[in-house]
């Protein structure tokens, strides 16, 4: 039996599952959410049904999945381990963090990792107050739950993603008080040659969001950031400041803005832990892939934000290539998906230009004070972090975690890792090494789990490469 496992059911994972399944390969598509779509295509959780559900009908929509895809919803993949001839994924399936989740272990000779990314949040005084959210939280709650995270919301950070977040908030009934872009204005960049590169289809979408903000008279300010949130139990107001080219606040430019919520996003961090567990090579924070989306680990393919932040269209193109390559790896007859491969190449050119235009610049470190929390889980302040670094010998992420406590909490350094690594001037990749990829309870760890359809060791002896 030809079978692959795809982890993550966003644009990349759905496209990978679809491509492999259309080549006659059975697919186990594992995702943490209740419905397919991931973050970008997040569905209304309150509406019945799943608009991407595997269907026997001929696929009429882009992401409609063929019937030989098994969608495993509400599943936490907490470990991946190499086994003879492939990999084994360990999951807990059921209500999030409940005691009644069921254990499952699935083996496959080919694996597509499409675990996506999450918002990067930079610390600032007061960012641990309830009412400060990531931009992704505001988006997820508006799209998935029909709830606005506040009545008067300031949206801040950098990059084009801030526009759809503001639009979703307005759609959910919030008043967006202002959008603070720390770099140059997105609309201006899109009209420049670098922005128009590769005829990015998103420019029309962004123009629509910009139009919506204009109709609702939402001020959009460039070189501006939320540098402090104020309140005792909740956000009551924020300080917004103009930034210089390196993101240092311009003295005297500070304004106090009344708001009960802030949504901030400074780009995205890929979910690397499963790729690292599968021993994929990572460079500059992203999984290295070849033209077939193959990683340095044989039989392991990666697609989407894991390989570089490039948005949903690029992720879906990479997913289609990865799914076809994984199908070929397990023995299906596959022609090189040349059109998807061409879309990947042009998408990456655009993504590179976009990421170069919206970097995180070092001046953010000046927004912090001694008592500003840098690790939310373990409540480590900047002063405590610096004290630990000054007193002890810190060479990399592991020693930094052990001496300062930052990154040792339940989020496993997902939120603070990159920030504290920058503050302490060490390489942050080590923060993504998580042998237990997602926190589970000790009783769950102790439980035995049946291994489904173990790989036939004899069959797996044949080396099947993918060369396009």
């Amino acid at each position, binding site marked *: 039996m030809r079978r692959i496992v795809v982890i993550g059911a966003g644009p990349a994972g759905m496209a990978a599952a679809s491509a492999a399944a259309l080549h006659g390969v059975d697919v186990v598509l594992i995702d*943490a959410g*209740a419905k397919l779509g991931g*973050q970008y295509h997040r569905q*209304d*959780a*309150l*509406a019945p049904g799943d608009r991407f559900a595997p269907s026997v009908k001929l696929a009429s929509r882009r992401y409609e999945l063929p019937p030989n895809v098994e969608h495993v919803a509400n599943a936490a993949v907490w470990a991946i381990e190499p086994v003879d001839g492939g990999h084994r994924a360990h999951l807990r399936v059921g*209500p*999030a*963090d*409940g*005691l009644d989740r069921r254990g499952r272990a699935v083996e496959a000779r080919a694996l597509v990792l499409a675990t996506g990314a*999450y*918002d990067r*949040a930079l610390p600032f005084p007061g960012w*641990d*107050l*309830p*009412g*400060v*959210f*990531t931009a*992704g*939280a*505001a*988006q*997820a*709650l508006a799209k*998935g*739950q*029909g*709830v606005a*995270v506040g009545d008067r919301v300031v949206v801040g950070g950098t990059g084009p993603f801030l526009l759809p977040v503001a639009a979703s908030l307005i759609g959910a009934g919030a008043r967006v008080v202002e959008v603070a872009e720390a770099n140059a204005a997105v609309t201006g960049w899109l009209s420049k040659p670098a922005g128009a590169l590769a005829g990015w289809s998103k420019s029309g979408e962004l123009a629509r969001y910009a139009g919506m903000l204009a109709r609702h008279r939402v001020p959009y300010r460039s070189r501006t950031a939320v540098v402090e949130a104020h309140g005792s*139990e*909740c956000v009551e107001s924020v300080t917004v400041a103009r930034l210089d080219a390196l993101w240092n606040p311009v003295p005297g430019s500070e304004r106090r803005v009344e708001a009960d919520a802030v949504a901030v996003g400074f780009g995205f961090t890929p979910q690397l832990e499963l790729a690292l567990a599968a021993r994929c090579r990572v460079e500059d924070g992203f999984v290295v892939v070849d033209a077939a989306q193959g990683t340095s680990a044989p039989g392991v393919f990666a697609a989407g934000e894991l390989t570089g932040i490039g948005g949903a269209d690029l992720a879906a193109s990479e997913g289609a290539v990865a799914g076809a390559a994984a199908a070929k790896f397990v023995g299906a007859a596959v022609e090189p998906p040349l059109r998807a491969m061409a879309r990947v190449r042009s998408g990456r050119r655009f993504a590179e230009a976009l990421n170069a235009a919206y970097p995180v610049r070092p001046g953010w470190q000046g927004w912090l004070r001694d008592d500003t929390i840098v690790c*939310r*889980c*373990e*409540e480590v302040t900047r002063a405590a972090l610096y004290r630990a670094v000054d007193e002890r010998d810190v060479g990399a992420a592991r020693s930094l975690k052990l001496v300062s406590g930052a990154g040792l*909490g*339940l*989020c496993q350094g*997902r*939120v603070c890792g990159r920030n504290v690594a920058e503050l302490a001037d060490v390489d942050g990749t080590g923060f993504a090494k998580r042998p237990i990829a997602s*926190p589970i309870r000790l009783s769950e760890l102790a439980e035995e789990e049946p291994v489904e359809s173990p790989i036939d060791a004899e069959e797996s002896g044949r080396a099947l490469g993918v060369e396009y």
Partner: protein
Amino acid sequence: MRVRFDGEEVEVQEGQTVAGVLLAKGVRSWRTTRGAGRPRGLFCGIGVCFDCLVKVNGVPDVRACQRVVADGDDIRTQAGAELPS
């Protein structure tokens, strides 16, 4: 469908998460930290940050943004580190 939040009965809809229910009710914070006892609520909204922890049916450390409510759930605020009851 109904759930209880700190003893109070709340009408909920199928598909709502605990965080969705609480934010729609105007509750912004439902946990205090282990160290300084500071208030926390939703932060990342997608299961990454573990800030929005809440007690559901006696089990602590449940992510409110990920847990979909079931009829009759007993949801309680969480103070610092709590053991299952």
